[in-house]
């Protein structure tokens, strides 16, 4: 009836051919690492990452610069979180986890971040908003967005760059950090 499954050994290299995919994982790790990068520390983390980047061979970095960058950043953040745990008394967060208090706080923070993003998006032009919405919500590629909005791909890129710039200025760095250091 059903034909027997074809046994093919998967070639892991295939999945990695798209080099973009290679830095997705470190990026994700950087964004979700436990206790990652409190906003006030981000510049310090960056300083440490910067020093490590200088120590690495340039040729090595060039292959997968983004993967290295976010991997280093999540490593530094993790090391610092570990150090922070030694400095701080462990009780409060431990108790919080037991009582669920942290979760409540987490949800409040989550809603607050949602409000902030919503407000920040209002500072964009309608076209910038639409480009972002089509990318993040409708899941369209840039080419598709350009086609749908009758824009050149260059204009779509421009809209994205401007949006990130504005949102970077608008979104308070504290809440961005909160968005990235959610509990596990």
């Amino acid at each position, binding site marked *: 009836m*059903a*034909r027997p*499954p074809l046994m*093919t050994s*998967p070639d892991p290299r*295939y*999945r990695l051919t*798209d*080099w*973009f*995919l290679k*830095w997705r994982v470190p*990026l*994700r790790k*950087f*964004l*979700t690492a436990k206790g990652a990068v409190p906003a006030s520390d*981000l510049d310090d983390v*960056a*300083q440490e990452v*910067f*020093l490590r*980047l200088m120590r690495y061979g*340039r040729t090595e970095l*060039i292959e997968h610069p*983004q993967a290295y*960058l*976010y991997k280093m*950043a999540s490593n530094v953040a993790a090391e610092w979180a570990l150090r922070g745990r030694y400095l701080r008394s462990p009780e409060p967060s431990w108790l919080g986890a037991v009582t669920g208090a942290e979760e409540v706080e987490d*949800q409040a923070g989550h809603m607050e*971040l*949602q409000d902030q*993003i*919503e407000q920040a998006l209002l500072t964009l032009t*309608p076209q910038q*908003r*639409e480009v*972002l*919405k089509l990318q*993040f*919500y*409708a899941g*369209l590629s840039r080419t598709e967005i*350009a*086609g749908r*909005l009758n*824009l050149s791909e260059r204009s779509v*890129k421009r809209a*994205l*760059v*401007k949006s*990130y*710039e504005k*949102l*970077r*200025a608008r979104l308070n760095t504290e809440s*961005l*950090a909160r*968005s990235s250091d959610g509990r*596990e």
Partner: protein
Amino acid sequence: MDASERRRRAVEEAAEWWVLLQGGEVSRKERENYVDWLRESSVHVAEMLRVAQVHGALEKFERWSQVSTDGSGDAPSTVVPLTTPTHTTGSPLPKYTPRQWRLAASVAAVLLVIAGLTGLLLALRGQVIETQRGERRQVALADGSVVQVDPQTRLNVQYEARTRRVVLERGRALFHVAKNPERPFLVQVRDTTVRAVGTAFAVEEADHTVVVTVAEGRVAVLHGPVTEGPSPATAREETTTASAAMRADKAARPNEPRSAGSAVSEIILTANQQVTVAGAGTAELVREVDSARVLSWAEGRLIFENESVERAVREFNRYNRIQLSVNDAALAQRPISGVFSASDPESFVAFIQSVAAVHVKRNESDDITIEAVK
């Protein structure tokens, strides 16, 4: 250049690098420039980390459906919610928490292993997966997603750097999507698109309707003209299923001009919800279903609940070479309930024999005719 001006420049450059690097294909020269830029200043590094955080925040944003794009050029708002998104009424959706990310990642990893062991890993680019009557297949896609393809189904897999798109031309399939928010997973049936980030859901194309059922996670069902002619709606309905699917396929390609009149309606489905989109794009209300039961076909089980014998026979015939037929109108309309293995029509026949007075005849190719005893 003072410090704040340096910072402003760094923000701008970081955004530019981010957008360039996100685009996918990046030349060696560009990567060299990028590394040199990073190694120029720790401010550059800091801004690169911040732009990633902005991106992460946008990915977690849950109220896109409420974001107005009025006044965006001459193009109207292209996303109009059909129903109130379910997540606005309750507590925030948990699926974007790190725990969920991790869970999804491990599910994807498990699926990858399963794919490696039992499936076939296909380097799919515009590749067609087609099953015949009686043929069921589990196919591992290049990104680790797994598709369970029902008999008599035809899929066209079009993976691109930024999107994973599967065009369902006919039949039905269950998708276990490997999570990757940078590369949305889209299933397209004519003018209906189902978008998922990391989830399991089924799409069925039958009689000019599209049925979407969600087992896990959340998907968005978008319906709307993907390309626009002067009056496309009626034309679309009159085309045959196959050619309409081809049209949808063609329309999915980038650079197709779209007129300002396009409107896309959207329904958000969460786990254990189902919706049927009719040919004209009219969607029924979202139904609550037991997805494990509704999607039991993916596991090779057929569950009938007060279905007619005729319908049950039709289902069995899709899964098997041995074809059943019922030679009695009254018997064909009799309702039955039961759980059967899809690949075992004999047990179904035995069941019918146990509940009704029937003769069973077999011809030389083992096909079975069920007749009522007169």
